[in-house]
């Protein structure tokens, strides 16, 4: 029997899961319109690949991944693209995001699907396939899965943790998926295992889901996989990746490190399922299991197409008349959907219809009495009340000293706070302020560097121009002087001795006006050279340049020399960011 570890803190809210597990996963009917946001994962925003009026097939690529950490987006069904435009996002702000609007044609016609044999392919090819199929973490973080499938170069991969804990109240989509599609989950885990080559594979499921545990155990046994399917104690947030890793392996992943640095990686069960569909069936992620529960007549799990508008989806459950809003995600970490037009996305694991009875209005915020309940339940062992004082006072430096970025916003602190302080809200506020400031600071630093660059360049150009002018003048003068000297020598003595004398004492014995001018010009040129040299040694406004910047300048100079450009009016390199 595997030894389990404990994480500190955590709470035990009413799970409210039984309501929605009574019926099997239903297939949601085709909605009348789909609004598929292009940005559904962490990382780069995919580029739209279709235009209004175009016909698309189910599974057709409509948004190409942009950069390595980005995941592609596909048409959830066949139909016609009506628009590629801004549409309200599934986001607490209610702001819009670039979305592809598709009118389904009702035929649900698949594009040609090409399964791959992942065992016969290079790992890079498999990762690429997952990226192209838009496989992302379906536990809620929506981090592109292929980006997590590379082991650390220095630390051997020890454990692969598969997260089926599903600790948030109300949500049962993973539970049902494990019960009904255990075999495909296990096969998907097999793909991850083959890519990461861990010593052990641990599947953690909260012990309030015995059916799921049994199903996965049976599936693993049937497929001959030696995955350990472990029931972990039910305690929120046991399904947090770091908490589950802690419980199953005893390792604590700090916020400053990646889990692979400790030889662990963690994936959600639904992610494993979609990965298997992508690999073995060539199906990209176009739908997901969504729990529809709360204040509805028929709570149930549905396999719904991504992009389904909220209004059409919740109609499946029959919301009761006193419903006053819809939450996306669980009641602990979810948020209220801004409008009924907002679409279901890859991160949507659950929609909860809320009512005043289900989620009563909060009592007014009282002052903090420093009772320490929040610190007791914080799974990251922070001191939320200290963070609260600093966040409230907008003392962001201090919040960072007290590790605000280790906060996972699980909401345990707010859950127990007797003063009913919206602690998580304060922390989110502080975090986004810090991010914004960091961004501003970086922009300012960049602007400063570029300004100094430009000033330095202008200085140098001026100096180079002056030198060139002086050189030209000197050459002109020297040429004239030489001509004059030659003329004088020819006049005086054409004998070799005289020529010798002329070279020994050039133009000195016979000082014509031109020679004098040449000398002056030469001196002027020398002075100018010296000045330019000084300027080059101690350039104004560039004395605070970093070594990297200096290297850049040197490189540009070298390139210029190679290209044979003396002093171009504008350097082409600099217009490239």
């Amino acid at each position, binding site marked *: 029997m595997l030894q389990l570890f404990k994480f500190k803190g955590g709470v035990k809210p009413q799970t409210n899961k039984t309501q929605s597990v009574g019926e099997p996963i239903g297939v949601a009917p085709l909605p009348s319109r789909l609004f598929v946001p292009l940005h559904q994962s962490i990382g780069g925003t995919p580029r739209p690949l279709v235009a209004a009026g175009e016909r698309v097939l189910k599974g057709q690529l409509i948004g190409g991944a942009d950069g390595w950490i980005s995941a592609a987006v596909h048409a959830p069904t066949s139909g016609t693209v009506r628009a590629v435009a801004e549409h309200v996002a599934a*986001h607490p702000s209610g702001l819009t*995001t670039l979305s592809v609007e598709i009118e389904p044609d009702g035929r649900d016609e698949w594009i040609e699907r090409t399964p791959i044999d992942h065992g016969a392919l290079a790992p890079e090819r498999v990762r690429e396939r997952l990226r192209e199929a838009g496989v992302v973490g379906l536990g809620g973080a929506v981090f592109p899965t292929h980006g997590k499938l590379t082991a650390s170069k220095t630390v051997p991969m020890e454990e692969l943790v598969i997260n089926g804990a599903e600790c948030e109240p109300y949500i049962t989509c993973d539970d049902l998926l494990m019960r009904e599609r255990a075999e495909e989950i296990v096969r998907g885990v097999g793909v991850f295992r083959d890519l990461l080559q861990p010593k052990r594979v641990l599947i953690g499921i909260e012990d309030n889901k015995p059916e799921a545990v049994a199903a996965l155990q049976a599936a693993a046994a049937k497929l001959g996989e030696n995955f350990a399917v472990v029931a972990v104690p039910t305690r929120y947030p046991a399904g947090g990746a770091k908490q589950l890793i802690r419980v199953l392996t005893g390792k604590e992943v700090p916020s400053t490190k990646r889990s692979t640095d400790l030889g662990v990686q963690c994936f959600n069960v639904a992610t494993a399922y979609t990965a298997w569909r992508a690999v073995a069936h060539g199906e990209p992620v176009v739908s997901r299991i969504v729990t529809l529960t709360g204040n509805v007549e028929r709570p149930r799990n549905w396999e719904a197409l991504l992009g389904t508008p909220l209004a059409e989806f919740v109609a499946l459950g029959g919301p009761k008349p006193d419903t006053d809003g819809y939450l996306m995600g669980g009641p602990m970490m979810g948020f209220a959907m801004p409008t009924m037009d907002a679409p279901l996305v890859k991160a949507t694991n659950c929609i909860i219809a809320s009512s005043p009875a289900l989620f009563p209005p909060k009592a007014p915020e009282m002052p903090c009495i420093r009772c320490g309940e929040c610190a007791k339940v914080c799974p990251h062992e922070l001191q939320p009340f200290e963070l609260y004082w600093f966040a409230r006072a907008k003392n962001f430096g201090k919040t960072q000293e007290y590790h605000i970025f280790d906060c996972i916003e699980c909401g345990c602190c707010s859950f127990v706070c007797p003063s009913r302080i919206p602690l998580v809200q304060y922390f989110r*506020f502080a975090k986004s302020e810090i991010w*914004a400031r960091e961004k501003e600071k970086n922009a300012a630093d960049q602007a400063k560097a*570029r*300004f100094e660059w430009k000033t330095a360049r202008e200085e140098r150009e001026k100096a180079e121009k002056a030198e060139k002018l002086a050189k030209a003048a000197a050459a002109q003068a020297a040429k004239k002087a030489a001509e004059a000297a030659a003329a004088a020598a020819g006049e005086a003595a054409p004998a070799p001795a005289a020529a010798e004398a002329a070279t020994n004492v050039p133009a000195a014995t016979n000082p014509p006006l031109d020679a004098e001018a040449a000398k002056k010009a030469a001196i002027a040129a020398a002075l100018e050279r010296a000045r330019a040299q000084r300027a080059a040694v101690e350039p104004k406004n560039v004395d605070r340049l970093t070594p990297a910047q200096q290297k850049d300048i040197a490189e540009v100079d070298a390139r210029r020399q190679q290209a044979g450009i003396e002093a171009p009016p504008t350097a082409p390199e*600099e*217009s490239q*960011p």
Partner: protein
Amino acid sequence: MITAIAIMALGAVVLGAALGYASIKFKVEGDPLVEKIEAILPQTQCGQCGYPGCRPYAEAINKGEADINLCPPGGAEGVQRLADLLGREVKPLDAEEKPKAIAFIDEQTCIGCTLCIQACPVDAIVGAAKQMHTIVPELCTGCELCVPPCPVECISMEPIGENLDNWKWKYPVIELKKVA
């Protein structure tokens, strides 16, 4: 009496020596205050303060030549932070505070004169003579220096609205107020 004087004198000598040693040992190189002031300034290099860039303005503040409320891009918050740093009174900004904006070139109108390229302090405009110019939005600081030189007035300042990238969680406002 003499003992007292001797003790005081000895104390003065010892403390003086300690202070002198400390001033040599912990000597601060350069003028860090200018750096700190400059770090608060937004580095738009816009010259709206009347100085040719952020560094000259920082130096002027340090010397006491300039007031702290002359930087419109820094806004009221910038004035506040400067006041905190320098221990001066907070003053209202000596200009209108505008929402953050970036320049936009109407490419249909642009004649490719390069005047704006020369004016841009941070090289955020690309283009060449007789070629259409455009602004690299990530690099634009919104200093507006490119607007006046344009002979065809094709550059406008576009305010950056709230979007998903710069959206921020709000400060919780559940203040208790007297009900009566």
